[in-house]
């Protein structure tokens, strides 16, 4: 983590906002998968960060340990995450909502503990390095071509992250509007009604979960490229909860809401990093989360469906 500099001048630096921009895109991608699960299908996936971790670590391990090319490792890591989603979903999606939620939290924690302790594979708490060499070459040449100043070295990643977000956003929007997406919404409303109409509700839940896993993996390797150092602390359960905050602020059932929610929550989280207050660093860090809590309470009170959610299609407490 960067040190908590107590200086307002940091706000003026473009590097700071480039970093925020990259994180917004990464979190928005992560949350797109969550939106598909919770807003569309009504399955309470509380372990989305687990897929992010699997995507990041699988990519890094395939490149560093197995010697795969970076370009093969990306789809490879996505497939690993999908495989985990299917394996986890097969037994747990038959459970009732709350049990599934608990199983997914446990899954994400298990992934993190494995990353922390499987030293031989993941480097444990020492972390992993050296998976982004291919990317660094591309980033450097992009920087040259765009004629960017040296301190703007993260601009290529910013561009790639937002292009990826745009593509995934378009894909999920199209899926959501397709008859397949309509079946997910029907499953969310009433699984038995769907079954009685000859449709396999369980298969739809599994597919939704697998797609969320794939999308989570993409956010994972983007995060890995941003950090250029992988360690288990990047994948705490709080990542999923921040993602939930974005989902609820933006509006359940709305993909544009995901992007808006990611912008709002991330700007508040990062923008308050350099607040000059007569408090200790630790207190400032806590204050940032209190602010997110206040925003959530305000949204719940004033616009319970979220900023871009639709009232007729309220998913929680409707």
């Amino acid at each position, binding site marked *: 983590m960067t040190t908590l500099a107590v200086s307002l001048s940091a706000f003026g630096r473009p590097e700071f906002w480039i970093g925020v921009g990259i994180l917004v895109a990464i979190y928005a991608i992560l949350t797109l998968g969550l939106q598909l699960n919770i807003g569309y299908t009504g399955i309470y996936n509380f372990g989305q960060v687990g897929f992010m971790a699997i995507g990041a670590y699988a990519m890094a391990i395939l490149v560093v340990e197995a010697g795969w090319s970076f370009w093969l490792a990306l789809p490879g890591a996505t497939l690993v995450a999908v495989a985990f989603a299917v394996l986890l979903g097969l037994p747990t999606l038959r459970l009732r909502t709350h049990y599934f939620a608990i199983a997914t939290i446990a899954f994400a924690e298990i992934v993190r503990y494995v990353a922390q302790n499987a030293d031989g594979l993941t480097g444990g708490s020492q972390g992993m390095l050296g998976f982004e060499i291919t990317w660094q070459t591309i980033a450097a040449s992009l920087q040259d071509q765009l004629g960017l100043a040296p301190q703007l070295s993260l601009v290529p990643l910013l561009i790639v992250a937002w292009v990826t977000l745009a593509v995934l956003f378009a*894909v999920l929007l*199209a*899926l959501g509007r*397709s*008859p*397949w997406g*309509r*079946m997910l*919404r*029907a499953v*969310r*409303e*009433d699984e*038995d*009604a*769907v*079954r*009685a*109409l*000859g*449709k*396999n*509700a369980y298969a739809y839940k599994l*597919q939704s979960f697998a*797609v969320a896993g794939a999308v989570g993996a993409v956010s994972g390797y983007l995060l890995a490229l941003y950090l250029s150092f992988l360690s288990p602390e990047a994948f705490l359960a709080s990542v999923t909860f921040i993602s939930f905050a974005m989902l609820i602020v933006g509006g359940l059932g709305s993909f544009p809401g995901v992007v808006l929610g990611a912008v709002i929550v991330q700007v508040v989280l990062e923008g308050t990093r350099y607040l000059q207050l007569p408090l200790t660093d630790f207190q400032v860090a806590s204050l940032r989360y209190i602010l997110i809590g206040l925003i959530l309470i305000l949204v719940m009170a004033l616009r319970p469906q979220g900023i871009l959610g639709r009232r*007729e*299609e*309220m998913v929680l407490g*409707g």
Partner: protein
Amino acid sequence: MAEGPILTVEDVYVRFGGVHAVDGAGFQVQRGSVTALIGPNGAGKTTLFKVLTGFQRSERGHVIYDGARVTRRGPHAIAARGMVRTFQLTKTLAALTVLENMLIAAQRHPGERLTTVFARPRAWRRRESEACAQALELLDTFGLADKAGDHAGTPSGGQRKLLELARALMVEPRLLLLDEPMAGVNPSLGRRLLEHMERLRVEQGVTFLFIEHDMEVVMNHSDRVIVMADGRVIADGEPQAVRADRRVIDAYLGTRREEPAA
């Protein structure tokens, strides 16, 4: 049309804890018939419906639908074969529009498969417009066409029953199981519902098995009546015969006891 009964139920047995909800029930439903399933509250009618449509496992016995044993099949597989149920409390999906409610019941829709959404857009768009036309036609028949764009939570309870029946028809059923179709429906809508049932039977050869408490409906609109009590079938025959059956009267009114000996 194939011969023999469309549905054969043998020795179905469901127990919840110590309660025998269905206790060895068996009967047949003839093709093209309108069969009523009646019995006092707690007789096991709805549980039996759940067994027939795969929502509940029977501990023993068989359900044979259209010549094939469906006892161990899942609800969606049974419905897709043409044995379709409705629910006692309507299960219209309130957050979806009336038209969307109809469309989720469309069969053989490539757009509902994740792999074909992007791979074969033209194929599923063609099926989608077909299904839309079919749905709008059905909604029109049931007098719901003007509600097509509304959210399905807004129509009245009676209209939701009609919607549920219309939606079940999208599955192209050959045997429709209706759980108390007349409950909570006003008389004029109820008459329409009965007319629709009769028309479907005559025009499309749909067989009906329905649970009903309204004896007038049962006696005048069914050609066979099955009576359940305490999880068993106690009578099975033509309406007039069943009405006169001693066991049926006893089940509804309580058994007459002999005067205790003085």
